């Protein structure tokens, strides 16, 4: 594949006029966002009573969805940073899309703790801002660690996303006209691809990857500690951090597959880049992380049983066989059973199978967080304090709105910023040389 073809294909995706289907999809996303915003406005006006949250289940759909979206974000960084450090070159074609997914997923996740606040306009109380009255935040609280971890993750992944795109924005600037040229001129900051820029860029990019790698592990560990640091049965476990990180990458990889397959279908010329081999590698990652998640499910039960702690064991029995048995078995089948099909090469290379299983994993991972959060709270130490939680239509509307919000940004990205990483795709091609040309 020549450099020229890569530039042309990337620009074709970027500069061609979107059809009516694109606008129809964006319209649908805006409708979903409208639904979510209306539901949120209703909740602000009437108070948290309009949700299904109660005593004892104070965390429900919002926190579940928060963890779900933070999890989705993780595989983007895995693909862009961790696989970069491992020099896995197959990642080059899909990493921009995965990274965009990370940024928009964190943007979505970040809304939920604020939506969950009874007085969302006081969200800035989570930050250490009150110097004059010296009323500081409690740094011993995992919820504050979360604020720092998620905000750092959002900032760093946005910077990483932008820096990776800088040379490609210059390509877009050099080959576009009109308002787009103005936009890309502004965004590319005058990048020319000269020796000075590339020299510092190479090292800078390496450091970004080196920082993003432990960061991504820390972020979902911190999210897991929101639960594990408490003494609620079913939460207070040392395996939570690695278990959550594996789950996050698992769900994120599934979302990458879910996004790539329709993109390949709509823009057939991208099949040269998002090849079936790339999808197969993603399926292998899904299989591996799915196996780790399945192992964690088993170990959780083993720990509860072997500890001899009756309350812990009762909580786990309730999770599998109690009121929430359906969500539990959805989780088990979607996350631990269905991905096993990827042991077969044929399934790993079958687009319909990949698409369906990736969707099932997305569903399963949402239910995993629901199970962990809701079943433990609804069934802790004192039977008199047990209670049941059911998501209210308001919560479900905001959940639907979050999908609209995520896909709105993602579709906007696809048409506004270079989704194919032009310079990194060129890097994995043989450099054009006269010697090669003559031999060919």
């Amino acid at each position, binding site marked *: 594949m020549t*450099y*020229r073809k890569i*530039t042309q294909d990337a620009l074709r995706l970027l500069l061609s006029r979107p059809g009516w289907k694109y606008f129809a999809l964006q319209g649908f996303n805006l409708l979903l966002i409208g639904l979510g915003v209306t539901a949120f406005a209703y909740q602000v006006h009437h108070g948290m009573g309009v949700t299904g949250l109660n005593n004892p289940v104070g965390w429900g759909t919002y926190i579940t969805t928060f963890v779900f979206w933070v999890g989705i974000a993780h595989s983007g960084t895995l693909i862009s940073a961790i696989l970069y450090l491992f020099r896995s070159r197959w990642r080059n074609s899909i990493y921009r899309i995965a990274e965009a997914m990370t940024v928009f997923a964190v943007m979505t996740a970040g809304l939920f703790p604020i939506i969950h606040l009874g007085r969302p306009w006081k969200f800035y109380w989570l930050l*250490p801002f009150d110097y004059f009255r*010296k*009323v*500081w*935040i*409690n*740094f*011993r*609280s*995992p919820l*504050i*660690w979360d604020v*720092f*971890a998620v905000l*750092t993750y959002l*900032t*760093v992944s946005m*910077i*990483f996303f932008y*820096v990776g795109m800088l*040379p490609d924005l*210059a*390509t877009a*600037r*050099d*080959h576009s006209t009109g308002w787009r040229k103005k936009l890309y*001129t502004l965004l590319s*900051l*005058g*990048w*020319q*691809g*000269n*020796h*000075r*820029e*590339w*020299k*510092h*860029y*190479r*090292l*800078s990019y390496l*450091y*970004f990857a080196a*920082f993003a790698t*432990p*960061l991504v592990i*820390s972020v979902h560990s*911190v999210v897991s500690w929101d639960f594990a640091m408490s003494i609620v049965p079913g939460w207070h476990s040392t395996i939570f951090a690695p278990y959550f990180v594996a789950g996050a990458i698992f769900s994120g990889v599934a979302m990458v597959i879910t996004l790539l397959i329709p993109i390949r279908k709509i823009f057939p010329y991208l099949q040269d880049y998002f090849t079936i081999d790339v999808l197969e590698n993603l399926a292998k990652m899904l299989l591996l992380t799915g196996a780790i998640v399945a192992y964690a499910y088993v170990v959780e039960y083993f720990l509860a049983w072997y500890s001899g702690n009756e309350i812990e064991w009762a909580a786990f029995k309730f999770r599998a066989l109690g009121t929430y048995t359906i969500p539990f078995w959805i989780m088990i089948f979607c996350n631990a059973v269905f991905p096993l099909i990827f042991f077969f090469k044929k399934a790993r290379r079958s687009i319909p199978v990949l698409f369906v299983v990736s969707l099932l994993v997305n569903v399963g991972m949402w239910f995993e967080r629901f199970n962990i959060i809701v079943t433990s709270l609804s069934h802790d130490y004192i039977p008199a304090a047990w209670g049941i939680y059911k998501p209210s239509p308001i919560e479900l509307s905001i959940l639907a709105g979050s999908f609209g919000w995520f896909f709105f940004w993602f579709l906007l990205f696809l048409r506004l910023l270079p989704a194919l990483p032009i*310079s990194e795709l*060129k*890097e994995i091609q043989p*450099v*054009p*040389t*006269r010697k090669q040309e003559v031999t060919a």
Partner: protein
Amino acid sequence: MKRFLAIFPYLDDIQEAYHSLKEQGFKIERFFSPVPVPEIEDDLIPKPSPIRWIVLFGSLTGISLALLLTIGTSVAWPLVVGGKPIISVPPFVVITFELMVLIGSIANLLGLFGLSRLPKRVNEPAYDPRFSDDRFGLLVQVPPDRELVAREILETSHAEEIHEVA
């Protein structure tokens, strides 16, 4: 002093031109490429990129800020929570790690901008839009009496185009 901007379709050609020009004592002002070419970049700027020190400085600043914030605020309003010491190191490590990464990454970004001299004006005469597509380029300083030598080297190395830049 004049400057020549030569455009090449092949990397081995431009490498040949680069070495010949250097041997002849010409000053190479810039090398352009759509992808990084470490050999030439490191030859033109032999010192390792100081980005590493900037990132280190940023990270250490992040660590110090985090310690100041967590320990300082706990001491400023000493409130025992959950029977834990006022200065509880393990939770503060989390904040310290996050701020190390945050400030280190921001320093990395600013360092990259500073060292690469970004942002800058785009349409300099000594740039060709094809450099971001599939062409390589050399910007050479040529003293008035050596124009022919430079032109000959560039032509022998199969430069596709040679422009005079003011």
